[in-house]
């Protein structure tokens, strides 16, 4: 048995707590408040001390658990969790307010208590797992049958997505959030062709989304064309823009490509903002045609000579019908994108994209035309952004350049990279995490960015290649290996 208080652990914990103390003193220990007009500096030493002590014990527990100790970190973790939980109870039941006891000042605040209890539980769990696994280490780790796992995850996700609006517990808000998430899933899948498969880091993808949205908006408002006519046109226009923007950047790679595409994305937005005669500038375009269910409108009182959706099915008018229809529309578009990507990956052009991502010079040495290959990736990726853009326009009924800022491109790239470049399910999961959760928990606005940043750090630590990095070969030799 190794002694739990091995001195390197202690030294390390003291060092980390010291660093935390230096950092925490100005952030936590000092508080600048404004009373009247004069800013006053007050101190919060109990919180400061609490934070440093917490970090000391947390670090001690983490390093002990990492080194394979089990008993000490389990006890420490449980103790931390208990102290945290009691302080939390103490705070929330309001005992703190009436208590005049001198030790009251040393009860940590809600945040510290939460961190202490969560961290304590985590340390205990990790150490406990180490303890349980200690005897079973020699057992060879079976590789997960990733192909099967991914397939079933995909089917399960698709199944949930299909029945979601029909579940009784689902309200308008959830459908709205789900529609938004699916838009990002579709955009993520489209961008996955460019970034994940072809390896062309495109930071201006939102430009094609904007082209699709404005194509539909302008065609609909100017000519009164229906959504179903405009959808392919918007896709084609976006693809054309993809080729136009692709040509000048053919020779660029990596960081340079990223910077130039970023510039293109901004150029499109600024053109939309300033070309007032054509795009109505910052005022945007409103009264964009809503989609119809094969010609049947979603309206309480349909226009003269047309029938509406609810009379067609003989049900009462309910505005939620339109939302559900929009949900299924984007679900169908997203699944189409997915099916297309899965299929094209197995075609020569898809393999050429991946080969281009791996090594462009080797590609040229095998007779692959890099220009055509890159342009096709740009065009097809842009086409799906165009589809998603027209969906966005018809859903909102209004477009303005504000919706197509750089942050959208950045979120999309984050979705693709965090999901695992080239992984379709990874992209879907990342979209749910990065777009769905922050949107659904809007009340916790204050903590959104904190959670976002924590999530990023955790993914960088544990899955630096993205959530799902498994890549299934697009083709196998015919006698399938029996073990696989």
């Amino acid at each position, binding site marked *: 048995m190794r002694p739990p208080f091995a001195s390197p652990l202690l030294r390390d914990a003291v060092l980390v707590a010291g660093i935390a103390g230096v950092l925490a003193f100005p952030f936590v220990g000092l508080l600048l408040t404004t009373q009247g007009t004069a800013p006053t500096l007050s101190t919060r030493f109990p919180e400061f001390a609490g934070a440093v002590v917490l970090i000391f014990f947390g670090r001690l527990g983490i390093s002990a658990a990492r080194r394979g100790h089990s008993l000490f970190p389990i006890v420490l973790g449980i103790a931390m969790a208990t102290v945290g939980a009691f302080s939390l109870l103490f705070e929330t039941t309001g005992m703190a307010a009436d208590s005049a006891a001198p030790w009251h000042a040393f009860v940590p605040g809600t945040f510290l208590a939460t961190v202490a209890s969560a961290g304590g539980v985590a340390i205990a769990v990790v150490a406990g797992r180490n303890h349980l696994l200690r005897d079973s280490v020699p057992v060879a780790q079976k590789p997960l049958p990733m192909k099967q796992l991914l397939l079933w995850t995909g089917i399960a996700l698709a199944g949930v997505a299909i029945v979601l609006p029909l579940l009784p517990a689902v309200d308008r808000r959830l459908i709205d959030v789900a529609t938004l998430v699916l838009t990002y899933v579709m955009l993520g899948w489209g961008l996955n062709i460019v970034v994940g498969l072809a390896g062309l880091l495109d930071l201006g993808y939102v430009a094609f989304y904007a082209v699709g949205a404005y194509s539909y908006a302008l065609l609909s408002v100017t000519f009164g064309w229906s959504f179903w006519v405009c959808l392919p046109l918007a896709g084609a226009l976006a693809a054309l823009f993809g080729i136009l923007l692709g040509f000048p950047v053919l020779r660029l790679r990596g960081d340079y490509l990223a910077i130039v595409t970023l510039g293109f994305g901004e150029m499109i937005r600024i053109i939309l903002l300033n070309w007032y005669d054509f795009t109505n500038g910052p005022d945007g375009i409103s009264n964009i045609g809503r989609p119809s269910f094969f010609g049947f409108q979603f309206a309480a009182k349909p226009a003269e000579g047309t029938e509406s959706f609810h009379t067609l099915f003989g049900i009462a008018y309910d505005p939620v019908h339109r939302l559900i229809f929009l949900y299924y529309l984007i679900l169908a578009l997203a699944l189409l994108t997915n099916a297309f990507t899965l299929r094209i990956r197995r075609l*020569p052009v898809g393999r*050429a994209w991946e080969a281009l991502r*791996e090594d462009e010079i080797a590609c040229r040495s*095998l007779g*692959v035309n890099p220009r055509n290959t890159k342009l096709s990736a740009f065009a097809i990726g842009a086409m799906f952004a165009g589809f998603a853009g027209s969906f966005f326009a018809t859903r909102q009924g209004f477009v303005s350049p504000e919706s197509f800022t750089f942050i959208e491109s950045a979120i999309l790239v984050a979705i693709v990279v965090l999901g695992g470049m080239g992984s379709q399910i990874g992209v879907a999961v990342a979209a749910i995490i990065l777009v769905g959760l922050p949107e659904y928990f809007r009340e916790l606005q204050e903590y959104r960015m904190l959670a976002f940043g924590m999530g990023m750090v955790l993914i960088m630590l544990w899955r630096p290649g993205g959530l799902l990095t498994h890549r299934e*070969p*697009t*083709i196998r030799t*015919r006698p399938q290996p029996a073990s696989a």
Partner: protein
Amino acid sequence: MNPSALLQVEHLTMRFGGLVAVDDVSFSVAQGAIHALIGPNGAGKTTVFNCLTGFYKPSVGRITLNSPESQATFLLEQMDDFRIVRDARVVRTFQNIRTFPKMSVLENLMVAQHNHLMRASGWTFLGLIGAPSFRHAEAASVERAEYWIDRTGLAEYADSEAGALPYGEQRRLEIARAMCCDPVLLCLDEPAAGLNPSETEQLSELIGYIRDHHHISVLLIEHDMSMVMGVSDHIVVLDYGQKIAEGTPEEVRNDPAVVQAYLGSDDDETDNAADTTT
């Protein structure tokens, strides 16, 4: 110069600013033969390869390929790199291995048949709808790939990531991949670099097999002299960008200029000689 040769290089010169990497080199490669390009480090061998395969545009010179099947003549110095592979079917490998590391061995070989498969897939449209003609073409390509996987002894790795292969296997994969491009001239840039003697032996056999059973000409850059002397039909020796000798292995071995280039003359600097021991 032999007008019936497969490849003719005439007065090839490549300048990088003031540096003349290749200086007025002429040679030819016969149909169905193994030619070697040798010389001390920095002699300009890889530069000649880069000119042949379109990665560099030569400053001066003409590179003619007489295609044995279509009777067409290609002026390689005027063509883009990927067109040289696609149309003239001169295919190269690299001194520093360039596989597609995250793709499987079979996928690597399928990429090599890209142009053929693109046509068969109707530029993707026929492939998307799963046309039978494309499926047949794809099956034929897999068969071709499997043939070369077997020939290069990669059968157990066929579905593994190329990047996970041992070094020697990656070298052989590059040759298999080049062969899947259906070349008339195969240019190998130091294929034996980093191989142990028995692997080098296998490599010599493979190169001989490619010549004898597929009637493909091979142009080889190599430092391993025993391998070069054993496998080559004809050797061209470069030094400081100039051709100093050519002929059969026997002739080259006894050529005083070659001996001097490799071992240095008495008053030459010693660092020159140090190079040649590799």
